[in-house]
């Protein structure tokens, strides 16, 4: 069957999709978006987490046909998604209100040809940068799912308590880090978000 849906802001069409196929399979194998990871295939691990019409879901448990006409955001589109959100709400990325010391330290020349698909060579979302800065990535397999889930948490709740963070990430398993650095990363992103908002007088 054919499935039409929007992925990371682009209209996509997948042909010859098997009726029992998951959204995750379509993303990885047909759209060339391997960021969402395939691990447990039963909704236990959260490594395939994407936004489906804004709601975080396990893409392994969404039948491809159920995505028809809907909007999907994967980790590959997270930076753009965060940027657009910041544009709408004033500032959530730390990129407005002048250059912060943090941002200045992070600065590096960026190549021009961001393809927006594979996630290579594109600007990072604040949560992605925070994961790098906090050392929250080890093997990296759980990272895409955690990023999507954490980004959605901070969208809903800019100053989450530790309990809020633990609850929001309770559907994402990490077998490397012991989670502490991941919690640090979310706190860091939240703090940066608050700082940039304050810097703006918002």
């Amino acid at each position, binding site marked *: 069957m054919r499935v039409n849906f929007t992925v990371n802001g682009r209209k996509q069409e997948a042909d010859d999709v098997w009726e029992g196929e998951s959204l995750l399979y379509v993303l990885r194998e047909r759209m060339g978006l391997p960021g969402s990871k395939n691990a447990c295939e039963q909704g236990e691990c959260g490594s395939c987490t994407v936004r489906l019409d804004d709601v975080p879901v396990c893409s392994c448990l969404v039948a491809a046909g159920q995505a028809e006409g809907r909007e999907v955001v994967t980790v590959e589109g997270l930076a753009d998604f965060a940027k657009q959100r910041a544009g709408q709400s004033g500032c959530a990325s730390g990129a407005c209100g002048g250059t912060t010391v943090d941002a200045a330290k992070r600065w590096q020349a960026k190549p021009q040809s961001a393809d927006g698909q594979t996630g290579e060579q594109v600007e990072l979302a604040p949560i992605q940068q925070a994961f790098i800065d906090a050392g929250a990535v080890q093997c990296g397999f759980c990272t895409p799912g955690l990023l999507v889930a954490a980004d959605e948490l901070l969208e809903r709740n800019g100053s989450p308590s530790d309990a809020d963070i633990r*609850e929001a990430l*309770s559907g994402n398993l990490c077998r490397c880090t012991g989670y502490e650095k991941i919690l640090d990363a979310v706190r860091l992103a939240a703090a940066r978000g608050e700082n940039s908002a304050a810097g703006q007088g918002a």
Partner: protein
Amino acid sequence: MDFLRPASWEEALAAKAEHPTAVPIAGGTDVMVEINFDHRRPAYLLDLNRIGDLSEWEVGEKTVRLGASVPYTLIMENLRTELPGLALASHTVASPQIRNRGGVGGNLGTASPAGDAHPALLASGGEVEVESVRGRRMIPIDAFYVGVKRNAMEQDELIRSVHLPKADGPQQFSKVGTRNAMVIAVCAFGLALHPETRTVRTGIGSAAPTPVRARAAEDFLAAALDEGGFWESGKTVPPSVAKQFAQLASGACNPIDDVRGSAKYRRHAVGIMARRTLGWTWESYRGQERSASCA
């Protein structure tokens, strides 16, 4: 395999009538696991996501009509006052990602004894609204679970909603598992006090072939509360009553040994949860009575 995408409830009923073996899929949190693992290859998948009505709820004067696909997240966020037991149970379902997709209709359709909604539904009481092209019927929740993963529905029927009475007293839900998130219940217990009718109702999960009520325990407790004048006085329930209630709840179990726990442990844990939930609900009832008399 064929993927059926009805755009309306009527179309869905027609599709189910034409293909009675079609497997309904809404949140997909049960069905997709079976397909991913090749445990199931249905000839037809019947997608219910396009039927908006299934994701809506209405709060009436006496009851809540809860659409079959209303995700657990929205139950937690919006119906805590009207359906406190179900809201608590919803909060223990798996993880945020799963709660964003799964709903009560899926729990009822799968009818696993471990479904988290069942103890709360049994304790609350209510009816399941099912429909086919032949017509609509309301199945009392007490008559819904008929065997291991079997319910009282006919092959051509679909679940449209559940009609649940708005809580008239405190409700609680307790679940045993190895951790808080992403856990299938080792066993679970729901308790609802119904001060208006001077009754109590219970629900036990994962400790019998189907979700069950502990009827002997309910009858005993209702009689003890009534005879002792506890509903009026709001006095503390004596430990002897709580103990007997717990023992009777234990006795209502008919569990098995499996990977999640032994039958013996389940019986024991259900008794403990019965005693605790009685304590929590009764304290809450007393609190309400006290503040009402002070007002």
